[in-house]
């Protein structure tokens, strides 16, 4: 009984962690290439979640759910392009990192308030397209929706890795994050890479937002949580480090669920920060980052 509860918690943690990984990958990618710490990142998840709210109202069932994920990627991808072009691009060469962080916090507040205006303050829930059906595997059970959540984030992570490792453009993104000057000398158009990276990073947060919305309530202020989790994961894994973000997401998800259960539910959100402090003390460049 004890061990089955433990297993159950670990499974829940992995599912939650896969969503954290996805959102954090977007943040870490944008940081790696552009050195922007975007505190508005979680708002891309919020917008993605609202895309799902509206689309699922039109298109019920699993079709609406899959459609929501694709639509969230598209809508938030475009929002990413718009914010990169209008907000970040003009500042990138002239402003310091701290300035850009302040601006991103401003953007966060702006998007949150706009969402209040457009969507209203009432929290919403996504309907379970599987009608609450459950997979029961004896030792643990989990809703079908959560299983699909896990499958979707793992597929998205795998596709992203494939893109970054195998495609010409993907390798160019990695090259740019490693050496911007040399990338320019290769004839890589840095501005195109920036826009693409930002859009892709935002889209990941958007898709993550839909998945997040299947687990928690959706509201205009929800963006703060994904931002916070993504930063914890990104710093834990090493800023700009992909594998670090993937692993970090899962670690955080499992640690939170276990901690929430065995320590205290009230401390659930604090656990990430405790891990963060430990990592910063013991390995400041993150689990995967290079030691300076």
């Amino acid at each position, binding site marked *: 009984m004890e061990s089955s509860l433990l297993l159950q918690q670990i499974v829940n943690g992995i599912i939650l962690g896969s969503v954290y990984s996805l959102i954090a990958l977007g943040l870490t990618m944008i940081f790696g290439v552009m050195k922007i710490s975007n505190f508005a990142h979680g708002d891309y998840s919020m917008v993605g979640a609202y895309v799902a709210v509206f689309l699922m109202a039109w298109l019920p069932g699993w079709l609406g759910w899959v459609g929501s994920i694709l639509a969230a990627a598209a809508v938030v991808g475009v929002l990413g392009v718009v914010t990169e072009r209008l907000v970040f691009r003009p500042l990138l060469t002239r402003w310091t990192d701290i300035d850009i962080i302040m601006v991103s916090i401003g953007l966060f507040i702006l998007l949150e308030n706009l969402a209040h205006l457009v969507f209203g303050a009432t929290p919403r829930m996504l309907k379970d397209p599987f009608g609450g059906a459950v997979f029961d595997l004896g030792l643990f059970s989990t809703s079908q929706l959560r299983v699909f959540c896990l499958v979707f984030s793992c597929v998205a992570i795998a596709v992203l890795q494939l893109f970054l490792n195998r495609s010409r453009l993907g390798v*160019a993104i990695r090259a740019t994050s490693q050496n911007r*000057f040399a990338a320019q000398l*290769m004839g890589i158009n840095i501005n195109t890479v920036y826009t693409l990276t930002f859009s892709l990073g935002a889209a990941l947060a958007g898709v993550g937002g839909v998945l997040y919305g299947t687990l928690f309530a959706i509201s205009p202020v929800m963006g703060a949580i994904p931002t916070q989790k993504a930063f914890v994961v990104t710093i834990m894994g090493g800023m700009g480090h992909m594998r670090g973000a993937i692993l970090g997401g899962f670690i955080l998800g499992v640690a939170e669920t276990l901690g929430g259960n065995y320590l205290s539910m009230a401390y659930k959100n604090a656990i990430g920060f405790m891990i963060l402090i430990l990592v910063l003390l013991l390995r400041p460049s993150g689990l995967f980052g290079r030691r300076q």
Partner: protein
Amino acid sequence: MLNIDQITVSYGQAPALVDVSLRVEQGELVTLLGSNGAGKSTLLKTISGILRPRSGRIAFNGREIHNAPSHQIVQAGVVHVPEGRQVFTDLTVQENLRMGAFTRRDHQAVEHDLEFVLKLFPRLKERRHQLAGTMSGGEAQMVAIARGILSAPKLLMLDEPSLGLAPVVRADIFDAISQLHQQSGLTILLVEQNAKWALHVATRAYVLENGRVIMEGSGQDLINDENVQQAYLGY
């Protein structure tokens, strides 16, 4: 082929190049000498569109390029192998080389060039799947030059390719550069601290001091010049 006409380049208020004019003709190997801080790297960065001149013009094959973005300059065939190698440390050797060919669509020619550079630097062949960041200085320099060749240069600009290399490896790099110029007929603009060798292989040469061209002539002329001998050849 390359015509630089009285360019002035500054970092903020501090001028780094003043009224610099320089030309490279098809098939030449032009050496650029100058002590530390003379402005050699600044000149190469301006040619490749990383820096913009305050005034003056740069033309390549008759087309003005001093306002063109760097990716267009690469596509036009002006390729810059930078000082300090600047390889992509977390990409493999092969990925580095493929990034050199980023703008190219002539896939067959790319494969051909890939074979060519692996013959030029056989050491890279066995290390194709090694991360470039784990290579020795000499090997990294080979990657940087090979990557430049993969960009299909019409003009290859090399910034201090022998910097910090042991004599044996340096000889390999020098051999490869001579071979590229003499056998492949590549046009080269070379910045090199080893003035003796660099003047010896040069068709023509320039001396840059404090951001100004103070001397130009054939490689042999400069080798015979007393000032050059004192300042760069250590006689």
